[in-house]
């Protein structure tokens, strides 16, 4: 062996490196699994999907409040839309008013499209996703918001 030869990685330290490396890899793999655990694979609690009946039940221009589902379902010429009744300020349930909606807690006011017209609410009332189930009835998914103005056409 001359000084010009590359230094040999002796078996001892290769073993050391390999064992420490595999140890760290094992730790990392375990950490990956552990970190996934707190993320719920399926959201607990009752479903926040509300089946509201077939589209034919709701005439054009109608509005129907569903207090159990905390939303109001509208139908106009362009289609269906559902507006949540939960005030975007601090979560109270808004009431229907002449101009749209009014919140009894801190005085937020919304027009009939859910846009804020007064009070402390930071943004408009959420529009909720409207779709249909396979058997044809309308279903509102309260966990999914859609941009204001989205209509569901039947």
């Amino acid at each position, binding site marked *: 062996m001359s000084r010009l030869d590359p230094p040999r990685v002796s078996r001892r330290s290769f*073993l*050391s490196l*390999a*064992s*420490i490396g*595999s*140890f760290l*890899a*094992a730790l990392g*793999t*375990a950490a990956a*699994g552990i970190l996934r655990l707190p993320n719920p*694979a*399926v959201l*607990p*609690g*009752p*479903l926040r*999907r509300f*089946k509201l009946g077939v589209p034919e039940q709701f005439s054009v221009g109608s509005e129907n409040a569903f207090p159990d589902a905390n939303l109001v379902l509208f139908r106009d010429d362009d289609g269906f839309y559902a507006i949540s009744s939960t005030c975007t300020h601090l979560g109270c349930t808004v009431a229907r008013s002449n101009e749209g909606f009014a919140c009894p807690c801190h005085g937020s006011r919304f027009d009939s499209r859910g846009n804020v017209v007064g009070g402390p609410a930071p943004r408009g009332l959420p529009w909720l996703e409207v*779709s*249909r*189930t*396979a*058997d044809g009835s309308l279903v509102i998914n309260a966990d999914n918001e859609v941009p204001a103005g989205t209509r569901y056409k039947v």
Partner: protein
Amino acid sequence: MYRWALLLASLLTIAFLVGAAVRENYLGQWRSVQMQYRDILREKATDDRGRELLARYRVELKQVSLPALGTVDRCVTCHNGIDDPRMADEPLPHRTHPKDILRTHPVDRFGCTICHHGQGPATNFEDAKAEDVFWDYPLLPPEMTQATCATCHDADKLPADQIPLLRAGTKLYQQKSCGGCHKLGGRGGVLGPALDNEGAKTKHQLTMVNLKPPHTTWAWMQAHFRDPAGIVAASQMRNPTLTQHEALALTVFMLSQWKRDVPESYLAPDKVEQKYAALHRQPLTGEQVYEQYCKTCHGNGTYTRWDKTFKRFVPAIRGASLLAAEDRACLIENIQFGRPGTQMPTWDLRAGGLLPEEIAAVADYLRAGVPQLKLAAVPALPGDIERGRSLYLRNCAGCHGHQGRAGIAPEIGNPVFQQSATDEFIVHTIRFGRQNTPMPAFQRPDAPALSDQDLSDLLVFIRTWRPKGAPAVAHANPGSTRGMP
């Protein structure tokens, strides 16, 4: 050396961690089922709605959580197509739910296990079926699911074509006169256990020793109906002689007997009415009472039957010669108070559960049309107890038993008999016997076996068994508690 161990152990650790991750995330049964379903959706995405459903479909765990019912049902993870009418021709588990049930019982509100049982929290079929798993209520076979309708509905008000087996089973229970030995709703005999919550039983509460696997409650019930003593050793239950279909129907009826605690909002209105009506029920007719409670032991009642299990004769209660001699009040008293110590139960409202009107009605049904005889007076001769005893031992004890009890013939020493039968009745019966029964006539006009003196002696001896302190017989009205043990 330690480093080799460290290396090996770390590699093994990584291997098994990865293995577990793969097993959980890629090899789960539900995942491949959902991918299959997505393919089906793709095939069927020929119109707007189909395309919309395909676009919205996500491969993920799905569940229906219903705190009110205390259930979390994950069946919908694999059964994706149950509310999609287009899936009617697809194989399970993708197929549409049969019949129109989901229209009135949406999955979002009811879940699945309230009707089908099974292990709701499971995410694969074997665990959901829960037949060989530690779970109280395995999945019901499809034909038996109708049993659970009774949880929320009054089964009698449901259309027969929806619950054919349940309806048939309910009728069979009455026709086979199961109530003669079993209580249901507080009414019935006492030779067998009460069946009110039979549907709530788990397999641990039934004797599975003689049953071939699978050890499910319904398999047990069906086998038990077809061969009681074969399933429960030393069972006294008479074989009801059922066909396979009848056994199935009765099993469905048994499974429906479950006093399950369901929130009121889930109960159908007729169920609430049914619960109320149970408190104020309409009396059955005499014929119905006889069919449901008496027929199993007494048969058609016109002749004596020999009971193999209990090794005794069962009286012919519709026999003409009995009914001619026994008056209505006496008949009612005997039904009301039974024969304590024998297989004849007390049918009084607080015990056997029959209403006074029902007891009277069945008494009338028994009598139907048999004219009442006026019985002759007893011989006016003083009786000798000792003579009576030896006469009794020679002529009567063989069938009626040593002390008038525990023989193979009706217990004339039984307190209820002693207090309801008149002296005239006793003498009349000894004189003329009973047609269609083994009781001979001991004073036939052409060939009298006993004299009047003999009869007096016998009567006096027989009366020594009357309970002390009991008043002389004077028939009370039905419902009376006078002087009964």
